[in-house]
C-alpha cells in the first residue's frame, strides 16, 4: 500500500514536470493591444501597423491606465505584428483588441483588405466581436494618435464606448468583425463600415464617427452622412433609440420639435406582381415628445395626429431618397434586400441571383411609416409664454 502510494506520488510529480508549462507566461510579460490602425505603404509594399498598447502606471497607491502608441511595418499584417517585438521587447497579444481601424490605403488593393480580415479571423487571439471601422483621414494612424499626447484617454476603450452606446443615438452603426466578414461572404447583401474623422474643437482633437462607408464587396463605393446612416438603420431594423428633429407646420407657423424614439420595428416584404419585384417596407415606430420649440399644444388629439402624419411623411420621403441615392450612386445592396428575397422567395432569387446589382438598381421600394406618439415625458403642456 505504502510503496504503491509512494510510486503514484512520484509518477504524478514527474509527469507534472513533463508538461513543461508550455503556455505559462506571466501577465506582466505580455503587452495587450487595445486598438490597431492599419495602413498600406505602396512605395515600400508594406503594411504600417500602429498599435495602442494598454499600460498602467502605478504611482504610489493609485494606478492609472494609459494607452501608448507604437508603429511598425511588415510585409504582412502578422509580420508587422511580430516585428513589434523589436520595439516593445514583449510579445503582444490580440486578445483584448477592441477596435481595428482600416486606412484608406488598405482598400486600394482588394487582397490587402482580405489579408487583414483573414489574419483577424484565423488567428486564435483576436475576438470576433472587435469593432471594425474605416478612417476618413489620410491614414488610419492619424486617428489612433489624434488624442495623444494631450489626453490619457485610451482610444481603444473610447471607440468601444462610442459603439456600445450608439443605441441612444442611432446615427452610426457598429460593425463587428464577424458581421463584416459575413456580409462579404453572403450574396444579396453588401458590407458597410463606420467612418472615423478627427475634429479639432478649441485646440483639442477629438475622434468622431461621421457616418458610414458603403462597400461593394471589398471596393469602397462612397459615404453616407450621419442622418443618412439613421435612415439606413431604420431600413435594416436596427434603430433602437435616438432623437428625430422634425419641422412641422401648424396654424401657419413653422415649429421645430424633437421626437425621441422608444421602439421601432421594420418589416421588409418582397412582393412579386406583374413580372415586377417590389419591396414593401413597413416601419412602425413609437416615439415620445421630447422637446417642443413652440407654444402649440401637441398633446391634443388632433394636433398629435397631424404631427404623426407630418413626421411619418418626412421620414418616408427621406428613406426613399436614401434608397434612391444608394441605388443610383453606389449600386450596392447594403440594405440586404437580396437576402430578404432569397429567404422569402427562393425560387425567384435563383433567377435574380446572377444579376442582382441590376435588379437592385431598378428595384421599386414602397416605404410606409407608421408613427405613434406615446407620452410626452414629464410635462403635458409646452412652456407657456405670458399672453
Amino acid at each position, binding site marked *: 500500500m505504502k510503496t504503491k502510494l509512494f510510486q503514484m506520488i512520484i509518477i504524478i510529480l514527474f509527469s*507534472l514536470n513533463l508538461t513543461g508549462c508550455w503556455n*505559462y507566461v506571466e*501577465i506582466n510579460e*505580455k503587452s*495587450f493591444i487595445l486598438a490597431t490602425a492599419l495602413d498600406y505603404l505602396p512605395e515600400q509594399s508594406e503594411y504600417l501597423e500602429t498599435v495602442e498598447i494598454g499600460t498602467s502606471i502605478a504611482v504610489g497607491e493609485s494606478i492609472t491606465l494609459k494607452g501608448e502608441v507604437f508603429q511598425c511595418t511588415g510585409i504582412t499584417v502578422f509580420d508587422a505584428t511580430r516585428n513589434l517585438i523589436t520595439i516593445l521587447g514583449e510579445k503582444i497579444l490580440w*486578445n*483584448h483588441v477592441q477596435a481595428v481601424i482600416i486606412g484608406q490605403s488598405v482598400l486600394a488593393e482588394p487582397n490587402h483588405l482580405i489579408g487583414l480580415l483573414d489574419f483577424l479571423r484565423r488567428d486564435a487571439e483576436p475576438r470576433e466581436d472587435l469593432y471594425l471601422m474605416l478612417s476618413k483621414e489620410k491614414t488610419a494612424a492619424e486617428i489612433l494618435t489624434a488624442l495623444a499626447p494631450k489626453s490619457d484617454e485610451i482610444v481603444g476603450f473610447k471607440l468601444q464606448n462610442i459603439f456600445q452606446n450608439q443605441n441612444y443615438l442611432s446615427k452610426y452603426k457598429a460593425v463587428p468583425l464577424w458581421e463584416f466578414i459575413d456580409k462579404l461572404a453572403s450574396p444579396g447583401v453588401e458590407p458597410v463600415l463606420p467612418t472615423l474623422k478627427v475634429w479639432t474643437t478649441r485646440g483639442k482633437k477629438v475622434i468622431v464617427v461621421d457616418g458610414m462607408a458603403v462597400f461593394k464587396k471589398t471596393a469602397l463605393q462612397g459615404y453616407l452622412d450621419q442622418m443618412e446612416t439613421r435612415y439606413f438603420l431604420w431600413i435594416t431594423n436596427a434603430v433602437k433609440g435616438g432623437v428625430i428633429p422634425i419641422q412641422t407646420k401648424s396654424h401657419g407657423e413653422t415649429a421645430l420639435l424633437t421626437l425621441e424614439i422608444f421602439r421601432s420595428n421594420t418589416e421588409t416584404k418582397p412582393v412579386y406582381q406583374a413580372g415586377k419585384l417590389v419591396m414593401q417596407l413597413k416601419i412602425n415606430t413609437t416615439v415620445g415628445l421630447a422637446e417642443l420649440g413652440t407654444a402649440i399644444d401637441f398633446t391634443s388629439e388632433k394636433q398629435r395626429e397631424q404631427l404623426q402624419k407630418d413626421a411619418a411623411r418626412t421620414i418616408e420621403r427621406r428613406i426613399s431618397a436614401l434608397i434612391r441615392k444608394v441605388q443610383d450612386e453606389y449600386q450596392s445592396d447594403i440594405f440586404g434586400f437580396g437576402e430578404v428575397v432569397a429567404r422569402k422567395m427562393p425560387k425567384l432569387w435563383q433567377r435574380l441571383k446572377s444579376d442582382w446589382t441590376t435588379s437592385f438598381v431598378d428595384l421599386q421600394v414602397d416605404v410606409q411609416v407608421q408613427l405613434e406618439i406615446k407620452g410626452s415625458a414629464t410635462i403635458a403642456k409646452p412652456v407657456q409664454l405670458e399672453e
Partner: protein
Amino acid sequence: MFKFIKALFTKQKDKSKTAAKESLKLSKSLAKNLQMFRELLQGDDLVVFREFTNQHYPECKFGLIFVNGLVNDEAINENIIAPLMEFSGIQALKEKSLDLFLKKTLITNKAIKETDINKLLSEVLYGSTLLLVEGVNEALLFDTTDFKYRSITEPIAESVLRGPREGFTEAILVNISMIRRRFASPELKFKLMKIGKRTQTRVCLCYLEGVASPKIVADVTRKLQQISIDGILDSNYLQELIKNEKFTIFPMTYSTERPDVAVAKLLEGRVAILVDGTPYVLTMPCLFMEFFQSNEDYYTNFIFASFNRLLRYVGFFITTSLPGIYIALTTYHQEMIPTPLLLNISAAREGVPFPTVIEALFMVLIFDLLRESGIRLPTPIGSTIGFVGAIIVGQSSVTARMVSAPIVIIAAITGISNFLLPKMLGSLTYMRLFLLILSSVLGLYGYVFGVIAIMIHLMSLRSFGVPYMSNLGSLKYQEMKDTIIRAPWWQMLERPRLIAELDPIRQEQTQQQVEGENEN
C-alpha cells in the same frame, strides 16, 4: 524486522502481566486481601486503606479502599463507615452477608458485588470505594466518584446567535446527562465500555434503537472492541482508529461539542460516541454535506438559513478554487479577464520578482501560518498577530513589491471563506494547494482535472457503508431537502434513508400541511 521484535516484546510483557493478575483472587482473610491490594497499588500514596470494626460485634472487621481526591468524603463517612460501625443487626454481622448489609445498612444508591480484581482496581482508581469484609471472598463497590470538572459553558468553536448555549464538558456522565435530558425515550441506548489498556477510558456508544441501522451499530461496536491502544485522550484517537478509509483528507466522522447537534444526529439514526475526558462527541456515519450544515440553520427561519447554506457552498468554491483559477487565468488564459482588470493586474504585478504561482503559494501559506500561530497564542498576544498579518504582510509586502496586491486580496478572500466550513479546514487547505499547483501547470485544464480527481475520490468514499456524497446527486425532493437549501420543518418528512433505514419517516404529513400545499 523492527516491528517483529517490537511485537515479540509487547506480547511477552502483556502475557506476564495478565497472568499475574489472573492468578490473584480474593481470599476470605481481610488482612490478606488488604495486603494484596497494598502490593498492587504500591507506590500510589493517594490510595487510602481504612480499617474499622463494628461497635456491637468487634469480630466483624471491615476494610475500605479508595483514592483520596476522587471520592466524596462525606458520602463515605456518613453512608458507609458510620452505618457499618453502628449496625446492630448481630445476625447479619455474624453471617457476614453482603446482601444483608446492602439491604439494611448501607445508604448508597450505587453499589455492586464484584470479585474480579482487575475490575475492582480500575473502579477504585476512577473514584469508587471498595469495601472488604473479614471472612468474605467478595467485595462491594460503591460509586462515590466526586471530582471537579469544568462547568458547562458555551463551546467557543461552535458559537451560535440563536440556539442552546450549553456545550459538552470533559466528564462523560455529565455529557450523557445532557443528551438524556433532551431525550426522554427508552429507545435511546447508552452502551458503556472501557477502551485503552492503561487509561481504561470510559467510552459510551449511543444510538436510537429502532432508527439507527443495527448493522452500523454492530460495526461500530466491533471496531471499538478491537482497539488495543494503551490510552485514549481525545475522541480523535477513536476517529482515526475506527475509520474505514484510512488515507483520505476528508473527515469521515463528524465531531461536535454541542449536545443539541449530537441529539439531532442521533434522531437521524446516527451513532454517537462519547469519550471521557473530551468534550468532542463523534457521530457517524458522516456525509460530505454535513459540513455545510450548521445547527443554527435549523433554529432560524428556513429562508434565511437556506441563504446561509448557499453561502457556505459559495465559500467552499472560493476557498478551494479561487487561487487556482486566478493563476490559470492570469498565466494561461488572459483573454478571459475583462480588459481593465487585466491591465490593473498587469500593473500591480509590474516589478514583482516572483512568478504568480510562487506568490500565490507564499500568500496562501502565510495565511495558514497566521491562523495556526493565532490559535495557540494567549488572547492579548493573539491580537498582535492580526496587526502583524494585516500591516506587515499585507500592506508592506505590496508596497515593497514583494507580492502583488491582487494576490493579497485573493489570499484574504480565500482565507475568510475558509472559516465558513470550520470543521473541514484541513481538507480545504489540501484541496486548495492541489488545485493551485495543477492550475499553475496546465491552466484551466489542470484545474478541471483536479476537480474531476477530487470528485472521483469523494464519490468513492464510504463512511460505515453509507456513500459519503449521498443525497448530493439526488433528484428526489425528500433527499434534496437538506442539502443545497434547508427546507422548512413541515417538509422534513423523512430521515436520510441510507442511515435510518429502519424507520425513515420523521413525521407524517398533517392534514394542515396537505391543505397548505394544495392551496399553493
